[in-house]
């Protein structure tokens, strides 16, 4: 069985800055995996390389066995990404946004699944509201919905709860847990370490473009203290 995500010695430069410095890791199918690190550690760059938004200078990246550069169409079909930035297309309402996103992934009639996503993310009442008129939290929910329209087996959530109220966080995590329970692989980056601690089975800590710790959440915390304390200790080393 192929790994959900496989990264082998991934290197990425931005000018003279080495944003990714030989990152290697494997994420198994069905895992709830945490990718943690301070700002500038390379988490978003790594996700961008995986999603094809950025191109690695060297190394191999694959999603469920499909190389992201040589077999990019199959790799992208299997990946859903919730971007960190709060971005939206101001011309469309929520339902149009999701229908269009479904079409991009080759799905013409997707209304049943769209309705289910809208219900699970508490967006049903906003289905016909233009994106411009939504609050920040609502826009964040639509971003999550857009990443899920094609039922990707691997879902990447890049700081999905930044600037989001408690109610949405709880609703979102309940939905994501359910997806994980149904077999979807979840990769989460977040600065809320208590969320990672309670959700992730395995965690990679990144610092200056490198993976500096990689283990199960339980093992990382076995030396004592919270995940936040482990994080601070590791980053100081």
């Amino acid at each position: 069985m192929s790994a959900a995500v496989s990264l082998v010695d991934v290197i990425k430069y931005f000018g003279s800055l080495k944003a990714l410095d030989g990152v290697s890791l494997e994420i198994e199918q069905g895992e709830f995996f945490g990718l943690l690190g301070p700002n500038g550690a390379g988490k978003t760059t790594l996700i961008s390389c995986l999603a094809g938004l950025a191109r690695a200078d060297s190394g191999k990246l694959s999603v469920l066995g499909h190389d992201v550069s040589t077999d990019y169409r199959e790799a992208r079909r299997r990946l859903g990404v919730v971007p960190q930035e709060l971005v939206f297309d101001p011309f469309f309402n929520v339902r149009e946004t999701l229908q269009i996103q479904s079409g991009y992934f080759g799905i013409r009639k997707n209304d049943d699944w769209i309705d289910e996503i809208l219900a699970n993310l508490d967006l049903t009442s906003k289905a016909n509201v233009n994106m411009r008129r939504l609050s920040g939290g609502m826009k964040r929910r639509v971003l999550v919905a857009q990443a899920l329209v094609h039922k990707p087996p691997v879902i990447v959530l890049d700081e999905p709860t930044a600037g989001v109220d408690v109610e949405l966080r709880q609703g979102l995590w309940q939905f994501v847990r359910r997806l994980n329970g149904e077999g979807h692989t979840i990769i989460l980056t977040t600065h809320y370490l208590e969320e990672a601690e309670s959700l992730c089975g395995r965690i990679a800590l990144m610092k200056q473009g490198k993976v500096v710790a990689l283990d199960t959440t339980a093992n990382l915390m076995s030396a004592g203290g919270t995940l936040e304390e482990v994080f601070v200790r590791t980053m100081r080393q």
Partner: protein
Amino acid sequence: MIGFWTLFYKEILRFWKVAFQTVGAPVLTALLYLMIFGHVLDEHVKVHGVPYTSFLVPGLVMMQVLQNAFANSSSSLIQAKITGSIVFVLLPPIPYSAFFAAYILAAMARGLMVGIGVLLATMWFTELKLVAPLWILAFALLGGSLFGALGMIAGIWSEKFDQLAGFQNFLIMPLTMLSGVFYSIYTLPNFWQRVSHYNPVFYMIDGFRYGFFGVSDVAPETSLAVVLACFTVVSLLTLSLLKRGWKLRT
């Protein structure tokens, strides 16, 4: 194919939702040109034996087709890049050739819609015959596609709205305004006649106008060959930028 059709549909919907600005405004602009220049010159000027207002209409139609095809693809891309919503089309498995085709066809559709609008609005001011409608269609489709591709290059290259405005004001506007929309190049001094022959837009306007009157400055076959060659070069360049992900994928 569904990815391509969706992107095409999205691009159509994007300009149609603001049709007052994207279709209505250029039609009004063309009408103003016609009313001012037509009123001042109609009784004094004939070109190729055709009254000036009649001569002007096809030029205005084609100018609006070209400018609006350019505006559609360029504005869509720059807006998506600046707002960050470009990720929604970069994350899915849409091949770069489908990406290209969807943007070009949508740009052409907006150009044609504006062109038809200008033609319908100006019908009240002059009588036009369609001597060779296939030539009209060929130049409108090819010209719209070429300017749609140019718009894609401008949208991909620009990082700010003022860079795009520079492209539009210092390249597209002079090329279209100095192409024979308002005059026959044979009314120009020799030097400027020769310069005009290096402007590909001149061939588009001249060939398009041939379809209405059956007379032109250059044989329509020559014009079509020039426009086709330009379209091929610009399309290959655009496709290569998309394949490399230049300024789209870091």
